[in-house]
């Protein structure tokens, strides 16, 4: 959290996450190269490097697709929440893999003594007016620049400097990078490689990301419309048991702000749905070690008053909660951050 500067704040969950991530990437790239080597044994050094280019490129595409799918997946099914936890490292690793793809491509030109041809390819201005024949490598370079920007500003230093709002807007550029990558592949290798695998990968990946965002957005809009069920200025959440234990239900205030109503056994409390760290959706998090834990980076807050446990200093706005006729209700006017507001329900 915010006490002192640390390059990377490790904990066991992050180490496990990173270990699984690295293993999956190694298996993908290793498997790809072994299969490609068997199917099309390289005749020379350039062919061997070409296999590496494809392995890193397809791995980066799959990783980018997964990163963009994690957000809506976690909203649709809480079992995907663990994937959100350390998504920042996922993004940085994607940049590393994409860089290795570019490095291998440069090496491919270099071993054939063709590096000047790359420059010619990128500076044949007439080709920029074409659709088929567009210098697709430029799209890849632009995507890599965006990924670099994301990776370079992924540290909390930049988050603090830019403010969570600006930082979040900046990191939405990942969608632009994905669009550039899709077109880089579509106008590149898909044009001269007749296998069905490439269109299938592109269409499958792009359609999955688009569909998941549409479905998650539709569900959130339906949830937002639920604000109409407010009565006497209070919003009905449901029976205490309808709130998952150690989890939350998110309700929307008439003004549009989302409120996360958490239950920890018999204790029920409501917090703003925006984490103080990166405005992450705290209502999609869980209660771990007695604290509400943001799914994005594990920032923690006490349910009772929205304060981070000492020595940390972050505070979230809380909301008044009451139990009426067996229904938990929340008042949509936020209390000052750090105000105790949780209640305890009598259990049968």
């Amino acid at each position: 959290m915010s006490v002192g500067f640390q390059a990377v704040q490790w904990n066991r969950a992050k180490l496990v996450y990173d270990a699984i991530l690295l293993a999956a990437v190694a298996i993908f790239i290793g498997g790809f190269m072994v299969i490609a080597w068997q199917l099309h044994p390289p005749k020379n050094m350039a062919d061997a490097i070409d296999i590496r280019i494809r392995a890193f490129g397809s791995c980066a595409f799959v990783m980018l697709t997964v990163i963009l799918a994690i957000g809506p997946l976690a909203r649709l099914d809480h079992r995907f929440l663990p994937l959100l936890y350390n998504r920042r490292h996922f993004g940085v690793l994607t940049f590393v893999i994409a860089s290795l793809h570019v490095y291998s491509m440069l090496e491919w030109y270099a071993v054939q003594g063709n590096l000047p041809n790359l420059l010619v390819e990128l500076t044949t201005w007439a080709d920029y007016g074409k659709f088929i024949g567009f210098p697709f490598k430029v799209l890849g370079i632009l995507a890599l620049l965006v990924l670099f920007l994301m990776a370079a500003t992924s540290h909390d230093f930049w988050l603090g400097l830019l403010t969570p709002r600006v930082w979040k807007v900046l990191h939405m550029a990942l969608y632009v990078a994905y669009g550039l990558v899709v077109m880089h592949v579509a106008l590149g290798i898909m044009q001269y490689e007749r296998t069905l695998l490439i269109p299938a990968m592109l269409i499958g990946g792009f359609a999955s990301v688009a569909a998941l965002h549409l479905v998650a957005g539709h569900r959130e809009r339906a949830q937002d419309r639920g604000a109409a069920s407010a009565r006497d200025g209070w919003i009905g959440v449901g029976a205490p048991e309808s709130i998952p234990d150690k989890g939350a239900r998110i309700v929307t205030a008439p003004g549009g702000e989302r409120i996360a109503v958490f239950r920890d056994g018999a204790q029920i409390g409501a917090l703003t749905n925006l984490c103080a760290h990166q405005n992450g959706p705290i209502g999609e998090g869980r209660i771990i070690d007695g604290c509400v834990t943001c799914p994005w980076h594990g920032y923690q807050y006490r349910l009772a008053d929205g304060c981070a446990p000492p020595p940390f200093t972050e505070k979230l706005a809380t909301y008044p909660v009451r139990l009426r006729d067996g229904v938990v209700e929340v008042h949509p006017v936020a209390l000052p951050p750090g105000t105790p507001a949780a209640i305890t329900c009598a259990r049968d």
Partner: protein
Amino acid sequence: VVHRALWPALAVAVGLGLTLALILRPPPPAAPQVAADQPEAAEGAR
């Protein structure tokens, strides 16, 4: 408003671009058949 309009527009643009790139793909080169036919044609001309 910008946020809500920008991402669907980007998705439509990429979807359209991908579809066009797929439709406009050049046909695969019919190389071996032509190469095999060439000596025969040369023989006929002779």
